[in-house]
């Protein structure tokens, strides 16, 4: 019999014993506190008056024509504008919800891991708003390539702890955050940034992020129709699961996740866990993992720090295996090109994570149009803005 928090054969709670009671406590709070009208009322008021929700749907006509000049693949291209959230990405939906929960649980200290820094900034922001001390673990390599977000976190009063071990990226930041948590578990709340990690985090994060999909679905219906396909980038997979959740029961809607193919799927430099991983356990969950025959985790690679992770949320593993969602990938250069394309066509500078979704959009639309015998209505989760990536994009030549 499988324990708590499984998605088919994936998920579970694979952690050191010291953390099990803390995860049980968190799961009780998730079930007993999160659904109450008082908690939901406070959260939704903050999401409205502080985050700026609901975020709009933007129709991207120029981009649609650039990707599909003849108009036979894309009937309509809609962007769910999570970049317009306060702090510039969907991560704030999760961080605010979890930190309100931490406060209700009586926790007095917040820790988080971050890759691109978006979750770190969101957590530092929520911690400042709620008056909680906050420490953010970030890989030293990611601190270099996302320097603006490091400065933002510090300005917000958070302590940013550089992680020098392993690949010095998101995986190692999460290792270090778990070590902190196991040491300070009684007072500290660990705010996990993606729909990954041990139960109940994947469920908790998905429940806080599904507002993306709920809003987008309602907006689509207001416009007259559900989309044919929903597209989102997948690292750990929180923006993707957030938008997928609302459409999972709509059998006419195809779901697409786009992973980071780095230098290419056939190289050893990518982060395409669902395309090239195997079933393993990383950071507390059974899921697809990039690891070798001996079970050692392989260092992922992506130009995008937020996707540079050798695991993936366990619910995506199930959606992959059941076929409910399809996972494709885009390379570093495809993503960088897409970022420039979106900026020129729509006046929106997207995060490099999000750029992966745009890079795969043309192929996905053609596939959908072929299957349906008509151009497809496409919905893309624009998960975050790209100010933090300007150095990387400019160095590549995207500023030309």
């Amino acid at each position: 019999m499988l324990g708590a928090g499984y998605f088919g054969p994936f998920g579970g709670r694979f952690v050191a014993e010291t953390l099990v009671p803390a995860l049980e406590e968190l799961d009780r709070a998730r079930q007993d506190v999160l659904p109450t009208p008082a908690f939901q009322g406070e959260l939704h008021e903050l999401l409205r008056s502080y985050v700026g929700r609901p975020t709009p749907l933007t129709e991207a006509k120029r981009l649609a024509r650039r990707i599909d000049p003849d108009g036979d693949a894309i009937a309509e291209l809609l962007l769910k504008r999570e970049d317009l959230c306060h702090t510039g990405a969907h991560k704030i939906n999760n961080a605010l919800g979890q930190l309100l929960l931490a406060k209700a649980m009586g926790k007095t200290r917040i820790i988080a891991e971050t890759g691109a820094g978006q979750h770190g900034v969101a957590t530092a922001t929520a911690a400042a708003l709620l008056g909680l001390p906050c420490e953010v673990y970030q890989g030293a390599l990611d601190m270099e390539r996302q320097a603006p977000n490091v400065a933002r976190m510090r300005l917000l009063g958070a302590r940013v702890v550089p992680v020098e071990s392993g690949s010095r990226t998101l995986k190692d930041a999460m290792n270090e955050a778990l070590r902190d948590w196991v040491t300070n578990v009684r007072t500290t709340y660990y705010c996990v940034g993606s729909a990954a990690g041990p139960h109940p985090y994947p469920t908790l994060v998905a429940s806080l992020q599904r507002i993306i999909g709920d809003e987008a679905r309602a907006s689509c219906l207001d416009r007259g129709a559900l989309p044919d396909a929903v597209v989102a980038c997948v690292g750990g997979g929180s923006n993707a699961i957030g938008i997928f959740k609302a459409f999972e029961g709509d059998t006419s809607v195809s779901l697409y996740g786009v992973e980071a193919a780095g230098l290419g799927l056939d190289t050893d430099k990518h982060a395409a866990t669902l395309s090239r991983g195997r079933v393993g356990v990383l950071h507390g969950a059974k899921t697809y993992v990039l690891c070798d025959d001996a079970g050692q985790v392989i260092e992922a690679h992506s130009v995008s720090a937020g996707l540079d992770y050798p695991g993936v949320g366990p619910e995506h593993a199930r959606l992959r295996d059941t076929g409910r969602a399809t996972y494709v990938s885009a390379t570093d250069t495809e993503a960088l090109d897409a970022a420039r394309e979106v900026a020129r066509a729509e006046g929106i500078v997207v995060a490099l994570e999000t750029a992966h979704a745009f890079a795969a959009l043309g192929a996905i639309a053609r596939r959908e149009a072929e299957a349906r015998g008509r151009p497809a209505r496409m919905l893309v989760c624009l998960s975050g803005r790209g100010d933090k990536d300007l150095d990387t994009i400019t160095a590549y030549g995207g500023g030309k």
Partner: protein
Amino acid sequence: MHRIDQRFVELRRAGRKALCVYLCVGDPSLEASGFLALEAIDAGADLLELGVPFSDPTADGPTLARAAQRAIAAGATLERVLDVASRVRARSEVPLVLFTYYNPVLVVGEAKVARLARAAGVDALLVVDLPPEEAAPLRDACAAEGLGVVPLVSPTSHAARIEAIRRASTPLDGAPRAFVYSISMTGVTGASPSDLAAAARDAEGMRRAFDRPVLVGFGIDSGASAKLAAGEVSGGADGVVVGTALARRIEQAASGDEQRRAVRTFVGELRRALDLPD
């Protein structure tokens, strides 16, 4: 009776505390680990934990994380650690516990790992990130090969949790009773010792709850702290586990000979401290 259970019966009869020594196998090399294991046994170790290095050791502090990185670089894998186990087994009847994170076991395959472990002369597995709720398939696979799976308890394990661990870790038919690993503090391996005397008292309660031997680990870095964590001869814990403090000495030794001397000296110091009367 299983070798590991026999060892605890003998120790109890002699009124001695068990000294369990952890080695990160492959640090500094697979060959050296075999020698160091035998050195530890000669110097008075009652049990050995043979550690499989893992790329992402989230329960370990910096010392054992560095040891794991060196071991991986030296080519250590779960299967090669078992090769070392079989070389040790050829020379000694000391109980061997394979200490690992879960991913290597899952990827190699639970049934295969149990089969290879038995063939190598291993007595039990300890999987640090596998709580009993998730351990049923491994426990079955191990029991089929006559191997135990060691449960862990922590200072955060409340009464209901201890009862849940006890129920989920009851030895299966054909498997040894082995022991319970009691973590002395909230933290990673190698953290500063906390209240080890309290840990010894907790271990005594744990032994009553589980009706199995209990070893205390984490934060034991000297003969004195080993004695403290083991508790009184007539009560306390059944013994202690020492890992980081030994890995640090191996790391700091300048040559293979020095490493062997360091192991012999330190394990001897622990042994003598544990054998002191109250």
